[in-house]
């Protein structure tokens, strides 16, 4: 089949000129404007530069063409150096439709295509009418055209109401991060600002204890409010739809974003439960996608599949995405043997001993109070031990760990790239071993299995991996 030529293809929406102009302007133009004040010859030169900067996007737009045939996208452009790129649909990792504020102003969207093994966005169609973007997306992923005006009803897997989002914001990990940041900021504030305020309160007869409680409460409230606002703005109208073997994730208030990921590109699905959410019976779900480029924050946001929901909702979603049986998906995990608890307690004792000795050496006999660290350390050891669990006898391997954020990872066998078994000296003493599953971009650790079990698992998984070999 002849590759379709782009020359008979379409131009971008004219708004592309404005979008490019804004992007270029942000990069270099704005810095030049103050220089206009200089006057003389320099001013003329600068003016000429600005005119060129304003014209460049127009020429770029005139030269830029794309052609979407079923299963391929051809893009060509370039002003001085002409280029032409063919993108096969089969290689596409993900397709994102983004609407930033600058797109919103013109009622257009940007279509970004990422290819496996590519270093970044392989093709960006910066301005398309929303319907056209949808058409290109469908044609590239070889979906049938939309039936009727309302696009064919893809089953909605997740739809977050503003109430859900508030819950997500209030229970999310952001709260902790923002609280820490606020702590830093507080140190930047002028010292007498805070202390004089405190003095005034004391003058009015507000007791010291209440002052502390009040300031801590205020602190937490501010952190909660910021977290809430950030969550609601970035995840506004968060929706996950399933269309064939693809997931479509839509979100964002100021910047609308619609990402598409093929289900078979998911390398792992992770059920995340932080302490707060676990107490409330809530959980969130993230996925690991190979070859996703872009800033870290963006990656994190894009890999989110469920900001928050009940544990059952989360598990049902995971089952749906994995194509697995939802019943008992995360239940009946093999818990870590008692020796794993002893190993953790040994570390806790070591920490407590070090703290106590440091206390005695640093202070005097009263420093021995530092031995009390043993209590929380022992509790942490116990909690960490309780969190451990794994299951490798199914088509999906399950690994669970983590105290503050409990992570239960689900990996399909074919996604496992390599396998490791490690035994440390303390593990040997307790007849334990760790199984490390390599999946693209990260390695999952099933820590402290019974050694015999780990060795059997190593052989079992290696056999199953070999069978997959043609």
């Amino acid at each position, binding site marked *: 089949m002849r590759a379709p030529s782009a020359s008979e293809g379409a131009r971008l929406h004219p708004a592309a000129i404005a979008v490019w102009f804004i992007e270029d302007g942000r990069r270099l133009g704005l810095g030049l404007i103050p220089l206009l004040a200089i006057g003389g010859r320099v001013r003329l030169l600068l003016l000429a530069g600005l005119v060129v900067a304003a014209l460049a996007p127009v020429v770029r737009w005139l030269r830029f063409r794309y052609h979407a045939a079923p299963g391929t996208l051809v893009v060509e452009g370039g002003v001085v150096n002409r280029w032409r790129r063919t993108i096969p649909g089969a290689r596409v990792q993900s397709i994102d439709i983004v609407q930033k504020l600058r797109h919103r102003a013109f009622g257009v969207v940007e279509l970004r295509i990422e290819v*496996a093994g590519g270093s970044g966005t392989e093709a960006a169609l910066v301005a398309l009418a929303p319907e056209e973007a949808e058409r290109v997306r469908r044609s590239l992923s070889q979906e049938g055209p939309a039936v009727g005006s309302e696009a064919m009803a893809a089953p909605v897997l997740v739809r977050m109401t503003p109430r859900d989002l508030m819950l997500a914001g209030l229970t999310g990990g952001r709260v902790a991060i923002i609280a820490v940041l606020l702590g830093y900021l507080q140190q930047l504030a002028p010292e007498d600002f805070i202390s004089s305020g405190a003095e005034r309160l004391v003058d009015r007869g507000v007791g010291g204890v209440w002052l502390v409680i009040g300031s801590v409460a205020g602190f937490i409230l501010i952190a909660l409010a910021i977290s809430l606002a950030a969550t609601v703005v970035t995840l506004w109208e968060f929706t996950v739809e399933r269309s064939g073997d693809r997931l479509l994730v839509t979100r964002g208030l100021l910047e609308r974003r619609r990402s598409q990921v093929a289900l078979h590109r998911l390398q792992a699905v992770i059920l995340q439960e932080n302490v707060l959410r676990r107490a409330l019976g809530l959980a969130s779900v993230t996925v690991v996608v190979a070859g996703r480029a872009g800033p870290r924050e963006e990656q994190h946001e894009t890999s989110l599949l469920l900001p928050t929901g009940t544990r059952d909702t989360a598990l049902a979603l995971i089952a749906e995405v994995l194509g697995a049986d939802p019943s008992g998906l995360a239940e009946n995990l093999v818990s870590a043997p008692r020796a794993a608890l002893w190993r953790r307690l040994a570390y806790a004792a070591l920490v407590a001993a070090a703290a106590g000795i440091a206390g005695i050496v640093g202070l005097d006999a009263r420093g021995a109070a530092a031995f009390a660290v043993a209590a929380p350390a022992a509790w942490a050891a116990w909690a960490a031990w309780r969190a451990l669990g794994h299951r490798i006898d199914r088509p999906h391997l399950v690994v669970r760990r983590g105290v503050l954020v409990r992570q239960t990872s689900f990996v399909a066998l074919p996604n496992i790239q*390599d396998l490791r078994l490690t035994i440390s000296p303390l593990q040997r003493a307790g007849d334990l071993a760790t199984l490390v599953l*390599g999946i693209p971009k990260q390695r999952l650790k099933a820590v402290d299995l019974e050694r015999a079990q780990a060795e059997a698992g190593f*052989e079992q998984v290696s056999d199953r991996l070999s069978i*997959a070999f043609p």
Partner: protein
Amino acid sequence: MRGPPRHDPLKAPAQSLDRRVLGLWWAASAALVALIAIGCGVAWFLDFLPAPLAVLIVLVAAGLGGLVPPVRYRLWAYEIRAHDLYTSRGGLFVTRTLIPFDRIQFVETRQGPLDRAFSLHQLVVYTAAGQAGRIPGLGDEEAGSLREELSRVAGTVSV
């Protein structure tokens, strides 16, 4: 270890490294011991360490430096099996690695200055998860043929 193992432990890979790697490791240990000796000498000179303790530290380091390489050599093994590459190393910290051929992204051989002095190569295997395995101390021919062989069977399955 508490009592005898309750089952057959994993069978170790069959192939040992090239014997010359022993020389390489000894050379590396010697360099490390020399560094420690210099450090101890300076510490003694500045009155941070009493002379007997400094001598003891250097002697222990030298002893370990002499003993560890043979043990390490005995415990290092690799094997090209029907469908995968299997390596095992370490006594105190044991690591066994298994890399199925069809998951291999690419294979490279490396040669550092020390490797070159002993005409040895390291073989490094990458999967989509990153660097998955490394075999040190391979002779010229062995390294070359392994690299070719592994590249040949490496994954043709698309990402």
